[in-house]
């Protein structure tokens, strides 16, 4: 029987799971995920994680609890830096340690360190280390890695077209069989900025994307924007680049949409107790003051966020934007 490696469906899952899965499958390792977030998973996470941690971290704990008994290993890479410049939130940096030392009865944690600041080949080295752990030869590991990278590129291009990670994954699995519904006719377009693991987790975001669609709003996220355009935002008038990858992307996306996004509204989705977001949110808010014609709202989520409250706030916001837009159309 093949070795089973568990990948919790949280945090980096939304960005790198296709790569990881392709890689493991290529070297003959079976991958198990914890599936979509459920109430049960959230409850487990809230119970196990530190009360002062942010919801995404609590969710990660929950997802680990969900699969820990079904797998031989847990794959929790220590992702420090992937672009040679910006790093990940310090909680990502300490993630394998937090899991290992605060949960009991968990399978061995595989925590290869990925830090591209340590040389051009450090990523390949990290995957070689992974391959070696599962007894794959050097060459087949390299091949697997290259194939996996291709999968990732395809996945990202699907995301850019506006698919959600779940849709993109199912399309990767069954190419050709596109059962993706055509986007409904909408007359409003919102940008939603924030971290992928919050935006795309429909449970913890209280189905934000779905709700917007239902309200007749099409959505633009940072993944839909060409990375090159984001790079063009430079440092968003800051003396220094923000040093956390996801925050950097979120801020750049916000700057981009305020300037050239042709959007009717901007939403920032942030998690209660998130460290970097206290900064990012303030910076986006300051930027939004320069663009009064585009309404901006911050949505904060935590483990108690209720369906009803979120729906009401969204509806009110959408109504406001719609009325404004109509008023402007009438005037001109």
């Amino acid at each position, binding site marked *: 029987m093949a070795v089973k490696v568990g990948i919790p469906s949280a945090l980096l899952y939304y960005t790198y799971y296709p790569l990881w899965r392709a890689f493991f499958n290529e070297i003959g390792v079976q991958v198990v995920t914890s599936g979509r977030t459920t109430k049960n998973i959230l409850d487990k996470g809230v119970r196990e994680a530190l009360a002062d941690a942010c919801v995404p971290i609590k969710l990660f704990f929950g997802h680990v609890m969900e699969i820990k008994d079904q797998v031989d290993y847990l794959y929790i890479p220590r992702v420090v830096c992937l672009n040679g410049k910006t790093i990940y939130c310090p909680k990502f940096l300490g993630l394998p*340690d937090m899991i290992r030392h605060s949960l009991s009865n968990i399978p061995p944690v595989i925590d290869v360190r990925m830090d591209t600041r340590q040389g051009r080949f450090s990523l390949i080295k990290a995957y070689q280390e992974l391959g070696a752990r599962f007894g794959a030869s050097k060459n087949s590991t390299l091949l697997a890695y290259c194939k996996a990278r291709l999968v990732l590129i395809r996945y990202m291009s699907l995301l850019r077209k506006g698919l959600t990670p779940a849709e993109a994954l199912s399309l990767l699995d069954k190419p050709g069989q596109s059962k993706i519904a055509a986007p409904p006719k909408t007359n409003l377009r919102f940008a939603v900025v924030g971290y992928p693991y919050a935006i795309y987790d429909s449970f913890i975001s209280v189905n934000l994307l779905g709700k917007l669609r239902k309200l007749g709003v099409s959505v633009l996220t940072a993944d839909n924007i060409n990375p090159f355009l984001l790079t063009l935002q430079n440092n968003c008038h800051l003396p220094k680049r923000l040093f956390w990858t996801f925050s950097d992307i979120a801020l750049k996306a916000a700057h981009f949409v305020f300037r050239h996004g042709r959007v009717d509204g901007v939403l920032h989705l942030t998690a209660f107790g998130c460290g970097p977001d206290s900064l990012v949110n303030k910076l986006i808010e300051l930027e939004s003051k320069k663009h009064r014609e585009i309404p901006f709202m911050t949505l904060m989520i935590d483990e108690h966020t209720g369906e009803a409250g979120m729906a009401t706030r969204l509806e009110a916001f959408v109504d406001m934007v719609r009325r404004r837009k109509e008023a402007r159309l009438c005037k001109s």
Partner: protein
Amino acid sequence: MQKLTFPRMGESWRTFKMLLEDLGNEVVVPPRPSKRTLDLGVRYSPEFACFPLKILTGTYLEAIEMGADTIVTSGGIGPCRAGEYAMLHHKILADLGHNIKMVVFEPPRFYPFNFIKNVYILNRARHSIRGIIALIKKAWRKLQALDNAEKLSHVIRPRELITGTTTRVYRKGLEWIDQAYTNEQIIDAETAALEALRNVPQNPEAEVLRVGIVGEIYVLLEPASNLEIEETLGNLGVEVERSMFLTGWTRDNTWTETTEGMTVKAAAEPYLPELVGGHGRDSIGNTILCAKRGFDGMIQLAPFTCIPEIVARTILPKVSRDYDIPVLTFFLDEQTGKAGMTTRLEAFVDLMRRKKHFRQGNGLLTG
């Protein structure tokens, strides 16, 4: 002429004031954080900003009221939020209509020109390079004197006969050091202050517990932000050893108990091999080192939502179990009350005391 102010951390302002004045600047000493400082800070900072950032916002606003127009502070390159503070403060203050100049010192290793440029800006009196180096050395000496006095006060306080004497003598000593402006005067003042502290009437039989304090640097160094926890502990008969001083971790007086020369980093390695920003790894490492040195307990101080300390706090229970040392964590914010903290501290001290007696009792039985 530009009027400078800077972040306030404990008593270190005495040094920075002297250094900046020596360089020929007018200085507005940042006021000690008060209720009003906190209110201002909370009102104008993002809700989930770390506590130190909020206090500093308040401090800056108060210093601006007092006439400051330039802020000298440090930058940093992560991985934690502190590196972005200066920039955010600048934006917040600008948003409030204050046109403030920021002089941000980035790590010289990565930004050598920034350092030279900043020194040039601050060097109003046009000292020569050698002159500047001498001034910095003198300032460093003063900082050491302040730290030494504070360290000794932590040792004396739990042993004092009359509660409050140490604090009073310590305050006086600080003033002496503050008034010293040359190297010789600083050394004299330091000697006098330490001498005065040693002369505080003490109870040689006092049963003193030893507790290490770890955590985030700002809340460790600024007593107003940690509700004078060290004084409270001292009054409860606890000798505290703080893991962090601006002048660094002094090796010589800490390694008397064990010959095992272990660095903080090496100690933390099995638990947290990664630098998670701030002082998260140090919190783990120092807890282990203190446990090995036979401390009775540890206290972790962290600002609410502090990322590295949350990582550390998640791992600390394991360390506590492995090394059999009780650890108490305080997440501090503007709502933390002194009464609540004192109650928790009393209970903790009680626990450590019982544990200690139990251990000693055991020793008798088996010995």
